[in-house]
């Protein structure tokens, strides 16, 4: 089947039931999207479908259809994405870094819909994404810095 990933048409030969997470990682070699729990609890596999954050582990590849997929590898195509990446680097958000791809894709969707998020907006948009190292104070600060950039 054909997928649109980060602005490119890609042919993928995968079982239709395979979650998008594993099609990206194991079939297409886009390993930036991470496996954390496989059950939708942690958000490490967050990607965007037509700009909406979804759980890659809960999205069968056959359900994607013509929706445009954005993964961490394509985040810099978005102006908000670039501002977030800059803020993430400058404020030194990551510790282990494993969850940060999912955090960034959730944050980019937040800023596109809510360019000046309040703390409550950030809580609502970001609480589905676990950071085991608990870098939350810096994630919050980086979202605000990107919003102000």
């Amino acid at each position, binding site marked *: 089947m054909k997928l649109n990933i980060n602005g490119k048409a890609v042919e993928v030969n995968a079982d239709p039931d395979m979650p998008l997470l594993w099609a990206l990682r194991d079939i297409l070699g886009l*390993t*930036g999207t*991470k496996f954390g729990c496989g059950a939708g609890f942690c958000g490490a596999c967050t990607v965007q479908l037509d700009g909406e954050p979804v759980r890659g582990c809960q999205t069968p590849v056959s359900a994607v259809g013509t929706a445009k997929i954005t993964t961490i590898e394509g985040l810099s195509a978005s102006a908000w994405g670039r501002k977030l*990446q800059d803020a993430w680097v400058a404020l*030194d958000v990551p510790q*282990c*870094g494993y969850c940060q791809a999912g955090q960034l894709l959730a944050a980019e969707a937040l800023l596109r819909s809510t360019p000046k998020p309040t703390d409550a907006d950030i809580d609502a948009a*970001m609480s589905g994404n676990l950071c*085991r190292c*608990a870098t939350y104070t810096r994630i919050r600060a980086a979202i605000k810095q990107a919003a102000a950039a």
Partner: protein
Amino acid sequence: MSLSRRAVLKAGVVAGGGLSLGWQLGSARAALPGQLSAFVQIAADGAIRITAHQPEVGQGVRTSFPMMIAEELDVDWAQVTVVPAPGDRAVYGMQLAGGSMATPTQFERMRRLGAAARAMLVQAAATAWGVPAAEISTGSAMLRHKPSGRSARYADMASAAAQLKAPDPKTVTLKDPGQFRILGRRVPGVDNGKLVSGQPLFGIDARVPGMAYAAFAKSPVFGGKLKRANKAAALAVPGVKAVIDIAERRDLKAEIDVPLPGIEVLPQGIAVIATSTWAALRGRDALACEWEGGDAAFQSTLAWEAAAAKALKDGPQKPGFINHGDAPAKLAGAARQVTADYAYPFIAHAALEPMNCTAQVTDGKCTLWLSTQTPEDARRMVAVALGIKPADVTLHLMRSGGGFGRRLMNDVAVEAAVIAKAAGVPVKLTWDRAQDFAHDWLRPGGWHRLAAGLDAKGDIIAWHDHFISFGRGGNFDPPASIDQSLFPAGVIKDYRADVSVLPIASTLGWLRAPINNAFAFVTQGFIDECAHAAGRDTLEYRRALLGPPRAIPMAAEGGAEGAENSGTPYHTGRMRRVVDEAAVMARWGRKLGPRTGLGIAFHFSHLGYFANVVEASVNDAGDVKVHKIWVAADVGQQIINLSGAENQVQGSVIDALGAALGQRISFADGAVEQVNFGDYSLARMNDAPAVEVKFISTDFPTTGLGEPAYPSLAPALAGAIFQATGKRLRQLPFDTSQLKA
């Protein structure tokens, strides 16, 4: 032996981890042009490459260690490119992320490596210019001879310098800390750019030509035997290529002595080899394995709770396990006694990157791509499992998506190597989250019955604990033990711990600030209760307990052990200073809103002195909201990377907050009951308060930050909740249903 400081030091000594290392590149490794040591290469084009050899698990060593070298090499941080190292102790010395010991054991060594490389460049310039080396100054990777006005780039002298005999690192001159230009600054992590753009860094990102994906079915009850499995159903799953019996359970611990021991067992099971991780996991599920028996089949949280209650009623199995002074006599003669029971559960590491390893075995040699805290152990373990030499195991040391002590253990690497050998192709073995919980090396649970004797003023003059935790053969497992020097032992002269040991067969391990992460909750919580019983302010009470500034020597090695601090003094003055600072930061004693409280606690572990204050409120439904956390810390003279240091502390206390509010592992029918983050909760964004951190520089050696901020959070929160509600929480995780108005 435990993961105590001395164990880590011993591991370093075994490795020959002294200052002499880092100069031999190893016979198999060709020196690059301008290679001054295994850690420093200066290329002709000006590139300054510094090797990061320590395992990166989120503690920031891939940045902080090269900073130490760069500082003394006297280059600008912007000029440095950090390059990774494979796991190879013969070349790099100790490579171990554990016990918060990397910085205290290697800070000076890294500085001397940088200074020695600088000395070689200076000597090369002195020879080229025919001037005394002492007249040459350096800075920003430039050499300058002021009298003659000559100058050169490091790159111009690097190939000549590389021909020189390296100086004895002990003889090189180090900078005065006042001259530091890199250390102490906020330096963003060197991998940040790759992390925010999704480039492969982690073990789970490894891709090897011809690689297959593997899942491994094994008994959820430790030691269970396979009764039946439907291999045909597994093979019928699209993408599944093979199923492989791993028929023999092997006790590798009997075959090897690694510095960080555990119950290293290769379990019996069935490996499923497939074209994707998803197909492999589906194939594993299709096996519908049935298991029977197992060493751990008796395990049950309900039964353990009953056994602990019985031990508290009947009295300890081992009276006087630790006995300083005469606590029973002092208790009997005390003006009043305070008693309380505390308890805490097993908790899991739950590193977000599931356990995984990619392995290739060909012609008696093995290559691993592995996220690990202990690469040398992994090589040795895998070598034993495969019957080859450790030197024939090449280990690509990958970034770890969290360690927290879980990746001290390399069980997944052994499994991957054995499966790869049987499969005949490289395989990436990935555990799913349920396996991560089922086969963790858990922080052990425990129970304490405490009694304190107070004098007429209310000060504590005697401390008595009946401590119950887990072990084998009637002896505590090291991570479940009690250290004879753990506070308040030493500070309170009349101290006694009686103990009882409950049997366990599952694996117990080291989890961020092991032992301390539980004991601080118990000890500091009980001190709060004593202060309240005495009618005194808990801050003033703690200051009085610590007393005048002095170094209290810790008990000698021997007997019970397990904490990280054996043999190091407990400095009450350093502790009082952070306690006072945290109180000032939080404006201790100020008026608070309704059902709102401030709690304070302190703890010393991993050579670091920490105090924190928590402000929290509790609504009528009993929900706890933490408003802010203030942390004061003394980890010695020099903060290496202020950004990374602050991040470690903020993350530690929010991690501990998540544990206090929701983390509990339980057993039924021998196995762990929790399967995913739906029934094991970590702190989330909406739980995370602001965390203000202050480091106090003192004239003591620089120490580590991966762990010691964690332990004092839970008791400070319990103190805040007590002030807010009058309810004393003595059990982790907190049962907030008790807090309803």
